C-alpha cells in the first residue's frame, strides 16, 4: 500500500467520522432537547394548572380581596370590614372580624404575606418575626382557592410565592425555597412564563391587578433523569460512532482495494513491465470502467512504445551498417602500408558509407520534425507542376542509368503549400518508381488540378507489391522483401516521409499494385487542406 492511498483512506475515514459525529451529535441533542422540552412542558402544564386559579382569583373582580392581596396600605385601612366573611363559614360578626383576627396574631389571621417580618402592625402591635419554615398556618387558609388546594400544592411538591403589585412578597408556601427572587416584570409575564432555576422549575404570571404569582416545583429528579438520558445518549452515540468507524474502515478497505490493484499494476508498468494489465473484475462499476480505460491506455502505450523501440532499433540498425563499413575498411587498410590505389579504394567506400549515413540522418531528421510537430508546412502559393518538373529533372539521369523511360503529363496546377516538402514527395515517389522498376520499364508522372486541390499520380511497370505488404509500405523501415535488395541510397523511410508530408497538407496518399505489373501511387492534395490542417503530425499508427 502506498502512502498516498493510505492517506486517502485516512482522509475518507476522518471525514466519515466527522460526519458521523455531527449527525450523532445533532440527533442526540435533538433527542435530548425533545425529551427535555416534553418533560418541561408537562411540568409547566402542572405549574400552569396551579398558577391559573390563583392568578384568576387575584385578577377577578373581588373587591373584598383587593386589600388583602395588595401590598401597601394596611389591610384594615384599605379593606372594608367583613370582606372576608363570605369566604369564611361561619362568618364572624362584622366588628370582630375587623379587629380581632389581626390583633390576635397571625394564627387566626392566616398568613399575611403582605407584611415584612419586622414591619410594625398597622394597629401598632409588633408582630413576632415570622419565619415561613415551620410556620404552619395553612397557606391556603383565607386564600381564594378550592378546598383541595393543599393537596394540589404542598403535598404534591409545588410551592407558591405571591408578590404584591409593589413587588413585595405577599405570601409564600412553607415548602418554598428560602430565596425565590421576583421574576423580572416583562410583558411575557402577563401570559405566564416558565424557567428553570437551580433545580427548580418555576412558572410565574402576573395578575390583572399586578400581583405576581409564582408556582415552582423541584425538578431535580427530572433533571437527574435527563442527565442520565444524556449520558445514555452519549454512550449510545459513542457506540454507534465506533461501529460506524469500523464499518467505514471496512467499506473504505473494500473501496480502496481495486484502486490499490490499479496502483500496483501502474507501478509495475511504470517499472517497465508493459505487459501488465489491471484485472477487471466488475466491468460496469466506476472503477471497472476506469480500469478498462487504463488498460486501453496501456495497450496503446505499449504499441506506441513498441513502435518507438522498433523505429529506434531500425534507425540504429540502418546506421550501424555504414559505420561498420567505415570501421572495417579503415582498420583493415591501416593494418599495414598500402598502395595509393588501395587507399583510394578505402576512401571511396568510406565516402559511400558516409553518404548513406547522411541520407539516413536527413530522413530521420525530417521524420523527427514531423513527429515533433514543429515544422508545420509553409503556406505559400506555388506552381505544383514546376515543383514536380524539378523533381523529374533531378531524377532523369537516374532513369537513364537504370534504363527506365520517364514520361510526364503535368498540367499547370497552382497550389498553396510547402513547395520544398511537396518536391520531396514527388522525388521520393518517382525515385522509388525508377528503382523498383525493371530495365526497359516505364514511369509515368501525372499531375492535374482537381475541383478542390491537386492530384499527383506516379505509376511504374516494376515488380509490384504483394498484397500482404501493401498495408505496411508506408511504415518506417518497412521493406517489402525483408532484405536489402533495395538500392544503397534507399533508407526505407521514403514512403513514411511522403505520408507524413501529404498528411501535414491534409491530403491522402494511396497505392494500388499488381505484383509483376507495377504499382500506382496517388496523392490527393485538397486546396483547403493546408488552412485546415490542424496538426502536421502524421498518424503513425499505419
Amino acid at each position, binding site marked *: 500500500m502506498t502512502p498516498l492511498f493510505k492517506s486517502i483512506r485516512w482522509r475518507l475515514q476522518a471525514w466519515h467520522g466527522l460526519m458521523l459525529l455531527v449527525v450523532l451529535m445533532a440527533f442526540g441533542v435533538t433527542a435530548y432537547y425533545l425529551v427535555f422540552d416534553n418533560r418541561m412542558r408537562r411540568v409547566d402544564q402542572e405549574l400552569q394548572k396551579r398558577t391559573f386559579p390563583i392568578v384568576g382569583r387575584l385578577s377577578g373582580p373581588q373587591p373584598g380581596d383587593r386589600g388583602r392581596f395588595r401590598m401597601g396600605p394596611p389591610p384594615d385601612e384599605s379593606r372594608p370590614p367583613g370582606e372576608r366573611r363570605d369566604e369564611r363559614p361561619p362568618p364572624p360578626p362584622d366588628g370582630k372580624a375587623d379587629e380581632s383576627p389581626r390583633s390576635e396574631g397571625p394564627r387566626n389571621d392566616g398568613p399575611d404575606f403582605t407584611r415584612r417580618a419586622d414591619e410594625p402592625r398597622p394597629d401598632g402591635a409588633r408582630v413576632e418575626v415570622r419565619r415561613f419554615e415551620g410556620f404552619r398556618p395553612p397557606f391556603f387558609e383565607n386564600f381564594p382557592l378550592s378546598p383541595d388546594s393543599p393537596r394540589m400544592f404542598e403535598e404534591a411538591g409545588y410551592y407558591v410565592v405571591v408578590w404584591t403589585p409593589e413587588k413585595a412578597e405577599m405570601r409564600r408556601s412553607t415548602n418554598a425555597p428560602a430565596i425565590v427572587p421576583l421574576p423580572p416584570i416583562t410583558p411575557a409575564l402577563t401570559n405566564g412564563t416558565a424557567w428553570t432555576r437551580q433545580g427548580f422549575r418555576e412558572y410565574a404570571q402576573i395578575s390583572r391587578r399586578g400581583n405576581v404569582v409564582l408556582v415552582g416545583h423541584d425538578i431535580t429528579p427530572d433533571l437527574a433523569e435527563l442527565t442520565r438520558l444524556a449520558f445514555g445518549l452519549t454512550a449510545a452515540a459513542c457506540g454507534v460512532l465506533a461501529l460506524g468507524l469500523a464499518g467505514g474502515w471496512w467499506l473504505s478497505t473494500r473501496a480502496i482495494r481495486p484502486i490499490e490493484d490499479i496502483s500496483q499494476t501502474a507501478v509495475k508498468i511504470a517499472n517497465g513491465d508493459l505487459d501488465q494489465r489491471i484485472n477487471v473484475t466488475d466491468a460496469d462499476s466506476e472503477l471497472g470502467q476506469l480500469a478498462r480505460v487504463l488498460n486501453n491506455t496501456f495497450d496503446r502505450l505499449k504499441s506506441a512504445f513498441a513502435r518507438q523501440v522498433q523505429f529506434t532499433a531500425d534507425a540504429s540498425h540502418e546506421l550501424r551498417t555504414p559505420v561498420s563499413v567505415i570501421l572495417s*575498411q579503415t582498420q*583493415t587498410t591501416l593494418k599495414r602500408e598500402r598502395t595509393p590505389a588501395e587507399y583510394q579504394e578505402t576512401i571511396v567506400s568510406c565516402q559511400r558509407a558516409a553518404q548513406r549515413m547522411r541520407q539516413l540522418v536527413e530522413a530521420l531528421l525530417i521524420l523527427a520534425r514531423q513527429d515533433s510537430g514543429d515544422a508545420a508546412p509553409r503556406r505559400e502559393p506555388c506552381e505544383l507542376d514546376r515543383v514536380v518538373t524539378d523533381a523529374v529533372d533531378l531524377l532523369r539521369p537516374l532513369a537513364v542509368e537504370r534504363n527506365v523511360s520517364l514520361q510526364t503529363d503535368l498540367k499547370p496546377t497552382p497550389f498553396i503549400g510547402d513547395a520544398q516538402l511537396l518536391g520531396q514527395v514527388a522525388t521520393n515517389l518517382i525515385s522509388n518508381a525508377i528503382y523498383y522498376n525493371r530495365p526497359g520499364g516505364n514511369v509515368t508522372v501525372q499531375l492535374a488540378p482537381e475541383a478542390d486541390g491537386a492530384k499527383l499520380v506516379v505509376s511504374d511497370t516494376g515488380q509490384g507489391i504483394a498484397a500482404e505488404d501493401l498495408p505496411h509500405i508506408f511504415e518506417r523501415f518497412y521493406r517489402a522483401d525483408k532484405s536489402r535488395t533495395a538500392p544503397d541510397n534507399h533508407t526505407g523511410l521514403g514512403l513514411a516521409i511522403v505520408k507524413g508530408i501529404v498528411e501535414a497538407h491534409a491530403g491522402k496518399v494511396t497505392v494500388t499494385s499488381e505484383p509483376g505489373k507495377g504499382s500506382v501511387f496517388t496523392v490527393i492534395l485538397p486546396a483547403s487542406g493546408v488552412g485546415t490542417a490542424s496538426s502536421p503530425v502524421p498518424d503513425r499508427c499505419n
Partner: protein
Amino acid sequence: MRILVIEDEPDLLGSLAKALREENYAVDTARDGEDGLFKAQSYDYDVIVLDVMLPHLDGWEVLHRLRETKKTPVLMLTARDAVRDRVRGLDTGADDYLTKPFDLDELLARIRVLIRRRADKAAPAIKIADVHIDTAARKVLLKREEVPLTAREYSLVEYLALHRGRVVSRTELYEHLFDEDDDTFSNLLDVHVSNVRKKLGQDFIATRRGHGYCIE
C-alpha cells in the same frame, strides 16, 4: 584455416575478406543467403562469418538449415543488438555473436577462439617438443628462436598442430588452407611441407603414405 564470409554489403564484405586474407586465412565470400548456404554445406569451413540481414535467405534461415547437416562454428554478425536477437542467434546454433559496428581486432580474436575451440585447444599456445606455436601472434619459435614462415607454411603448421596426433589428408589440407580462388596444384602442398621440414626439422611432420600428414 578457411573461412566463409556471408555479407550482402559489398564494401564490408570486401574489407573483411581482405583483412582475413591478410591474417593468412583462406577466405570464401558469399553475397546472399542462398549462395552462402550452398558454400557452407559444400565445404568444411573452420569458421563461418554470417550476417543476419541477407537478401533471399536471411541469416537465421541459413544457420537453421546449416545446422541440419553441419556443426561448423558460426559467428553471427548483425546490426541487431537487442538481447532478444542475441539469444535467438545463440539458440538457433550460432557459436558467437558480434554486433555491428565491430572492431576488426575483436572479430579476428573471436575467429581465433572459434578455431581453437573446434580443435579442443583452450590455450592459444601449442608446444610440440622444441617447437612453440603462438596462435595469437601467429608465430613459430624453435628453441626460443623465431622461425620465419610464409603465411601458407604457418597455416599448415597450425592446422596440423591443432589436429595433433591425427592423420590429416591432403584433401582436408587443401580444403582448409586454400580458398575457392586458389589453383590447387597438388604439388603446392608438398612444397610447403618440404619447406616447413627444412625450417623446423625433418621429423616435425610425418608422412603417412596414402593417407596424409601428421604431427606426432
